[in-house]
Structures are given as C-alpha cells and as structure tokens.
C-alpha cells in the first residue's frame, strides 16, 4: 500500500482537499474521489481528450496528470464551465447545432474549445480543427462540432462587444 498524500486544490472555484495515493491520476481523483464524473475516461493515456480539464489556464488531459500534482492548482472541469444561470455559449451552441450524438466526448470538447476561445476568440475553421485534433469523436464526423465552436465564438465576441 502506497503512502497517501493530502492535496488541496481549487476546483471550479471551490477549495477542495482530498487524500490521494501517488499512483492515482487526476482523472481518477475527479471521478472516484470527488465524484465529478463529467470528465470521461476514454483511453486513460492521453489519446482521446474525453477527460480534458483546464489546469492553471492550460488545457490538459486529466488522465496524464497525477492527483498529487494538483496540489495548489486551479482546475476547471466541465462542471465548472456551466454558469450560475443558463448555459455557456459553447454548451448552448452544441445543443442548437446538434453537435453531440452519444455525448461521451462532449465534456472534453467543450472544455477544449473553451481553452481555445480563451486564447483565440476568433479562430478560423482550420484553427478549430487543429486545436480539437486532440479530442476524438466517433459519432459526428466533427462537422457540427466545428460549426458549434465557430458559432459560440461569434456569440462570445458579440457578448463582449455589447459589454
């Protein structure tokens, strides 16, 4: 039995402390310890992006981060992207544009797309495709996902301009 470590992190703007084994990934901690099951396990080795979270402003696959590495970090999961009222424009456009079928990859895509739009509010189609190439979807052929991200970017730009 490995030694357990006390870890404190800010997860979705809440301070959370948990005891974790050094061999536990951040994904495992999120899902099995904190019961934040929005991050999905599709491959557990960084190939599919279904477990994407934003850690200290950087998009990461939480299956490739150890739970102990989260100590002191600020982490945003899909659960933290949802605003207090209504939906984030990415969530709204994914629904309006039917950008999900089975939905298992959707949390990862929305987190990844948010990380893109945080950096680049006006991406081209090619830039969206390049950024999202780390997230696999087997249902949609990406067509409606790419459109939803471009539509959400336009909404966010319009909201910013209005503000």
């Amino acid at each position, binding site marked *: *039995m490995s030694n357990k470590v006390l870890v404190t992190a800010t997860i979705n703007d809440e301070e959370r402390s948990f005891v974790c*084994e050094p*061999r*536990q990934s951040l994904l*495992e901690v999120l*899902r*099995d310890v904190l*019961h*934040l*099951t*929005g*991050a*999905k*396990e*599709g*491959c*557990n*080795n960084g*190939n*599919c992006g*279904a477990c994407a979270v934003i850690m200290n402003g950087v998009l990461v696959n939480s299956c490739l981060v150890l739970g102990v590495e989260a100590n002191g970090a600020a982490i945003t*999961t*899909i*659960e933290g992207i*949802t605003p207090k009222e209504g*939906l984030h424009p*990415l*969530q709204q456009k*994914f*629904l*309006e*544009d*039917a950008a*999900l*079928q*089975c*939905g*298992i*990859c*959707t*949390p990862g895509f*929305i987190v990844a797309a948010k990380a893109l739009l945080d950096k680049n509010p006006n991406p081209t189609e090619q830039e*969206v*495709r*390049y950024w*999202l*190439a*780390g*997230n*696999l*979807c*087997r*249902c*949609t*052929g*990406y*067509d*409606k*996902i*790419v459109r939803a991200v471009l539509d959400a970017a336009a909404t966010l730009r319009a909201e910013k301009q209005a503000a």
Partner: protein
Amino acid sequence: MTPVIKKTEAKTNGKPFKVIGQRVIRPDGVDKVTGRAQYGADVILPGLLYGKVLRSPHAHARILSIDTSAAEKLPGVKAVITGKDLKPAEDKVAKSGESSVNYSYLSQNVLAQDKVLYHGHPVAAVAATSIHIAEEALALIKVEYEVLPPVLNVLDAMKDDAPILLPNLRTKELGEVVSDKPTNIASHEQHARGDLAVGFAEADVIVEREFHTNTVHQGYIEPQNGTALWNADGQITVWTSTQGAWDQRRDLSEILHVPLSQIRVIPMEIGGGFGGKFPVYLEPLAALLSLKSGHRPVKMWMQRDEVLKATGPTSASVIRVKMGARKDGKITAAQAWLAYEAGAFPGSPVGAGMGVIFAPYKLDNVQIDGYDVVVNKPAAKAYRAPGGTNAAFAGETVIDELAEKLGMDPITFRRINAAKEGDRRADGPIYGRIGFIETLDAIEKHPHYHAPLPEPRAPYMKVGRGVACGFWYNWDGKSSASAVVNPDGTVSYLEGSTDIGGTRASLAMMLAETLGIHYEDVKPMVGDTQTVGYNDGTGGSRTTYGSGMAAYHLGKEIIREMKQRAAVLWEVPADDINVEGDVYSYGEKRITFKELCAKLDETGGPMSVSVSLDTKGAIPALATHVVDVEVDTETGKVNILRYTAAQDVGRAIHPSYVEGQIHGGVAQGIGWALNEEYYYDKDGHLMNASLLDYRMPTALDLPMIEAVIVEVPNPNHPFGVKGVGEVPIVPPAAAIANAIYRATGVRMTVLPMNPKNVLQALGKI
C-alpha cells in the same frame, strides 16, 4: 451549409407537419453538455468494489492450470473467479439484435474455459476495494499455458491443414453439416439466380478482381463497462452501457443460469456503440464477482487496449468479384465470393455482406457465395451496417471499372441497372418503395458533381473524383412504450430504445405530432427491463422506425382515452367526438388537450396507457456518395477534399440528427478506407491496441461533409420513416478507391488505403 431537403409526397393529407422536420433541442441535451449525464462508468454505489480482468497473453493456447491463491490473499481482494466459476452455457442459437448468438460461444468468450483463442481473451477476474488493488491481484494469478500455433487470416484458416480453433466445429454447407471433419469454416452459404455462363457469354466487358480488407473496430469513445449487484435474495441488477437491455437480460440469464425474472438491466447513457455494445462482456463477470464477494456491487470498465484486443471488431475479409456488362450498359452477370473472419467464434457478418454486395442493382444472372471462418482474433461483432463496407468496396469498385471500360458516366451506368420497387434482390426479398434512383439523381444534380476539380498543389499531387453507392436492409422489430398524461397537459413518455444519438428527441417529436401538442410538452425517458415493455435493441437502424411506430400508436391510444374523458365531460358518445390537432370537439363544444388534461381527475381519474408492438414494414436505405481526393504520390497519403452524401431517409424527423448520422457514418467509412486496421505480429499479438496507433479520423483529417437528405416516404410507416444510421458507412471506401483511381490510374484492392498500400499500388515500394 444548409442541407438540401428534397420533399416528395407527404402523408399528411396535405397539411404540413407541426413538429416533424423541426430542429428542436434534445431533451437529454443539458445533462450532456454540463457533464451531469450518467453513463455506465459513472455509477457510484455504497460499498462498491472494483473489478478487473486477467487476459490471455497468447493468441492460441491451452490453459493447463490457474493458481489464484496468492491473489486471493492480497488485502483488499474480495473475490477471484476463473472459468470454473462459470457453468457452461447451452449450445443453442438465438436471435440477438439483427444477428444471432450461440450461448455456449458467448459464455466462452466472456471467460475462457480450457482454451484461449485470441490475445486478450479473459481467463480470470478479480474484485477488490480499489482498482489498483485489483490490478495488483491480477499480477499474482499464475496461469500455465500450452501455446498452440495461431491462424491469423481467413485464407490460412480455410486450408486443409490449418490449426483448428474449435475441435467440435463442423462446416454448415448450405445449412447442413455434411462432413465430420474438424474445420475453421463455420458455414458456406449461397444466393443464386439465373445462369452465370449465359450472362458472361452475353457480356461485352468483364471485370474480375480480388479484394483484401483488414480488421477494424467500432471505436466508440466510451469503453465497455458494467456494474452488477447480485443481491442476497437472488435478484441481480446490472447498470451498463448497452444497445439492448433486453438482449443483455437474456444473455445474462443464459450465461448465469438465472431466470429472466431475477435480472434487471438498467441501460445507462451510452457513449457510442455502432453495434459493438449489444454483447455482454463484463456484466456476467461483475455479477459473479458480486455473488462471490458477499453481495457487494462490483463495477468494471475496460481500458482502451482491452477494448481493442477483446471487443467488437468487424471482420477482415477476402472478396472476389466478377461482373460482365453489355455495351448498352446492362449488367449481364455478377458473381461474388466472400470469406469473412469471424474471429474466435462463428458469427461474422458475411451473410449481410452477401446481401449488400450487389443490392443496388437489378440482376438476372447472379451467384454469391459466402464463408464464415474462425481465426485467432477477437470474436467479430456488429459494426454499423455489418459486413457492408468491405462488400461495397469490392462490388462498387468493379461497377466503377465496368463503367469506365464502357466509357460511361458512373452514375449513368448505375441508373441503367438500378433496382427499384418490385425488383427482387439476389438474396431473395422484393424491394418496396426504395429511393435509390432518387439518390443518383440528387448527386447528379448536385453542384459538387459538376464543380471543376481543384488544381493539384504540386506536380506529385493528383486529384480525382469518385462515386459509389450503398445499401442497407434496415430493421423494424419489437418496441414498447408507455405514457402518463399529466394534469398540466404534459405527457410523461417512457420508451425502451437506448438513446445513442438523439432518438429521445425524434421519438418525442413523433408522439407530439400525433397528439397535436408541443414537443416540449412530451417528457421522454428511457426505461429499463423492469419499467417498460420489451424492446429490441438500438441497432439495425430501427429505433426511429420501430419505436417511432410505438410512439405513434401510443399517441393514438392516448387520443382514444382522451375522447372518452371528453365524452364523460359532455355526456356524449366518445365515438362522435372529433379530434383536430390538439382540439377535441362535439358540435359547438370544444376543448384543447391541455384543458382536458386539467379535468382528468373529474372524468375518471389518472390516465396511463401503454403499447407493445411487433412492427413490420421496414424498407431498405440506399445512398450515393461523391468524393474528391488528393493523392500525394510521393508519400502515398490521401486527403479528402470534399464529400457529399445523398441518402433516401424516408422522412427526416429531426434533420440535424439525420445529417449527424450521415456525417458520422461517412467519417467512420473514411477512417476504414484510409487508416484503420489491426496489426498483428506473426504470433497473433495485437500490436496497435491504443488510440494513437489505431488511428481514427480527427477533426483535422476531415472536411465538412455535406449530407443531402432525400425523402421518399415509407408507405408502411405513419410518418414515412426509413432507417438512417447504417447505410452512410457503406459507400465511402469504394467512393474513395474510385476517386484514387481517377486521380492516379491505379485501382486500389486493399483496405486500408494508407500510405504504404497506396505506394505499393503505385509501384513505388
């Protein structure tokens, strides 16, 4: 891009639909974009244990002994099981989904008995208090094997002196066992009509080719999972991601030797399936581990390498095609020989492939032979239009070559031979109102077909345009549904088809349309084996057809009951009440559905209805695709520049999800065509069991895909529905091969058409 929707006759007595055809928000959508939706692996229960599977490191071996004693002693381990804990299941075949299942084989696939038959075959399983302890315990299990020579491709497996996988297997030759010789050939079937010799003698051109395709996987992003509680009272509850909860209940009953009534299967949200999530894998093991650990719930889910090594894939195949045609374009004879790998146990989709290969065409002289052959690979399972893509790759490539040799446009050539209503397929059935010619028309008229090809970006880049068509059977099957009519005018709607891609929306739309009420006033939920009547699984492109028909009849039942309530209210005969949309009337009296709901309490009390149907009348789907490719003749890489897919869908209930099915099928077809394949070493070890090495298309690999919806309504369905989901995967490989030919002058006869195989075909390596 706005989709082209071609409207033909509408079965609405001239009135437009109110709900059908709208692009409404799916009812489960918010949960899925906020991360709240509960998929199989998200189940958390008090006292939960974690289960893991020990898998064979060999492709073919005899199990001499298994020693689990050290694993059992590891602190935290609560149960260990091996094949000895699984009483053999009966050697009998039952229908499962669109295909069939032999319970003995299914049981042996879940947990090996005396032999392992593929790399990754389960040999033992452990339940422990953490996933890591379970993994440590696996390492403590000692298995002694006698390694046997593996057989890894269909032609080797068919040889007389091939190593034998299943000692008791005998070939079913046209349905009968005629020899007692042990074999790997599980069956030979044949469809034949007319006279091939006469047909080929009449031909002005004949094309004959042999095609080889490799094993590919469904590639759903959610790995298989299963959580089970075998309670002290003998009741078993299973939470799982399944396409068919009732199929699972029956499979569990047969494998565990427990009556159906003691098993409840709760289908959780499902992260893709494509046919691969019909069979049980982990669920029986989780149930046995639960029993053995003192009735604690056990959760299991696979790692990605386990998914690739031991679930799903669809068959590698060898297909020989010979076709002849006259100068006027008439096909005079068509012959095909298909051998499909079944993997470790009989059951490849060769029968379906035999039906697909020439289905779009009216043929007088035809013979199709198919062989189902076991090899040391995972047991093949359904994958979207099972067996269709590789069959169409062969058939449609030869069709393209015939057109080229006759100097005919490929669409014109296909139109001359196109099957239509009343024509008999090679495999027997007579076509109903199919819309094949309408899809040819849609592509021929589409700007894509006439647009100039882009200029090659470099002298070594070649561009070309290809066309191919596809067929899929579609299935109707059994569906149940129930509803509660609420006093506020809403309808709680329970249906039994796992929603794998938005069908809660399309089914709720059909119920709302029937009732004349708003879509938002129908509240759909997916039931389980204990809460709603029997449903065939979500497969065979059947859900919007069969469960849609159940939604319609459920609506009609609600209307019948509502008329009785209005009759009580007004003290008039129920039969004399008129219903127009959501308005119930008798003479001057009128009341809306919503108003009548508020009066349920005073007109007889609560209202609930249910229906159970065995639906008939599905009509096949046909499609025509056109693709532009760019071939880098230096590296062999093929890029998809533009893709347009026209498909007869009968009726697009929710056009966005219809387009989505077409996009997704095309994308999988492109992956199959260009990249995806299983690599085995000579000993039968799968060498690319990860999503990095089993390379599915990413967003960067694909262009936008234009879906052209053609609507030729199915007269057997109240709203004209035909199945949508499967046929779009059928044409892509052939369309791309034909485009590569037009670009380079080289016919591709091998899948995938990856850089190595393209360079080989170009003679560069």
